[in-house]
């Protein structure tokens, strides 16, 4: 059995920090763009033209039933075919945004569906507009129903960004590979990396829980 030695890794402190920042940045970009995609998809599925619904459903099912690593490869290789050179980080952002968007679309759609029709009716009966009913009656409770799933999907996205290392996008996992090739301390590196991801995930969980308590104060059915 070997001996544990984390010391050689400290020389790469800056690289790790940069890796962490890039991972966070990649997660936030993908989640942000993905959320926009998801809202658009959910809107189309809910009340868009029929002709658009099938492509949207196709996109969602395609993403949900194929491995993310293949999705990243395809996005990475599709652009050069059109003569566009994309940096790996950009390609990874696009692929992960498409990935997050498909899952988030499904979450948003079912969240909106979870609001009973009777609530919508009650809103209409007050003589306010359809848009006002959506904004004031449907959306707030729907957001609360969506919140737990969408935040865990965000955490899964954070973990999933590690795959971007496979097209050499420079995030945390890529850093691990680089440091490994220089120090050969594989055990310590992957233990450390795992520990960093655990800390990041826990930090987000705590943050989301606090934010949720702040945002959704009304009591729910006992």
């Amino acid at each position, binding site marked *: *059995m*070997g001996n*544990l030695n984390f010391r050689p890794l400290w020389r790469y402190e800056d690289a790790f920090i940069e890796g962490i920042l890039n991972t966070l940045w990649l997660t936030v970009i993908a989640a942000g763009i993905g959320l926009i995609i998801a809202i658009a998809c959910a809107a189309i599925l809910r009340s868009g033209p029929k002709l658009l619904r099938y492509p949207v459903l196709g996109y969602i*099912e*395609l993403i*949900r*039933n*194929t*491995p*993310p*690593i*293949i*999705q990243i*490869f*395809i996005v990475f*290789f*599709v652009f050069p*075919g059109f003569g566009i050179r994309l940096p790996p980080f950009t390609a990874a952002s696009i692929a992960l945004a498409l990935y997050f968007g498909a899952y988030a679309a499904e979450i948003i759609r079912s969240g909106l569906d979870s609001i009973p029709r009777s609530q919508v009716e009650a809103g209409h009966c007050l003589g306010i507009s359809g848009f006002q009913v959506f904004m004031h009656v449907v959306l707030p409770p729907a957001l609360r129903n969506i919140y737990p799933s969408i935040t865990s999907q965000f*955490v899964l996205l954070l*973990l*999933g960004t*590690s*795959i971007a*290392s*496979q097209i050499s996008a420079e995030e945390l*996992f890529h850093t*691990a590979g680089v440091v*490994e090739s220089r120090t*050969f*301390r*594989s*055990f*310590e*590196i*992957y*233990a450390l*990396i*795992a520990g960093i*991801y*655990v800390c*990041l*995930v*826990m930090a987000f969980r705590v943050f989301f829980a606090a934010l949720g308590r702040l945002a959704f104060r009304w009591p729910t059915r006992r």
Partner: protein
Amino acid sequence: MRSLSTIDLIAFATGLQYTLLLVLMALAFGAPFGLFLALLRTANMAVLRWASALFLQVVQAVPLLALLMFFYFGLPVFLGIQIPALAAVTVAFTIYTAVFLGEIWRGGIEAVKQTQWEAAASLGISRWQQFRYVIAPQAFKIALPATVGFLVQLIKGTSLAAVVGFIELTRAGQLASAATFQPLLVYSVVAAIYFAICFPLTLWSRNLETRLNGSR
């Protein structure tokens, strides 16, 4: 440079067999482990509940890729031994499967009303018998849609074994891509194969879900 040919398709078929082998191994070892975790999570003793919850929380916060790297590269170096690739990735996928199934099945067990435990206990049978004959059948039904859903996640997850050089479907695709210089075509074919396996399972899971909600 050559074009995509029958050789590649045969390689895909072989790769697919290894993908399915990985899935079976992960289920064979991961499912009992997952059941064990689910039982710990719903145990009467608070210590067991806390310890298992911590384990599940921590492992679920580690990327699958990190688990694979750790068991394939990290652990053998540390222990100074050779571990066969299949063994290393099987360990990683077993743990991965166990924590997810553990969490899903815990949910199933907790969804069965507490009064069912009480009713079973009042029959004077042991705690294990209460679980085996009264709780488990009901919990199984509740947890089945999510379990099938996880199967899809696991199949997609095995694609990451390619990263450590294990030749399953995705790795076979990478090799074909390198040989033919037609990555887009190759990965589209590979994606289609994954889709052909995963989509029916997804539909099945959704169907089970609808039926479950209908019956409650």
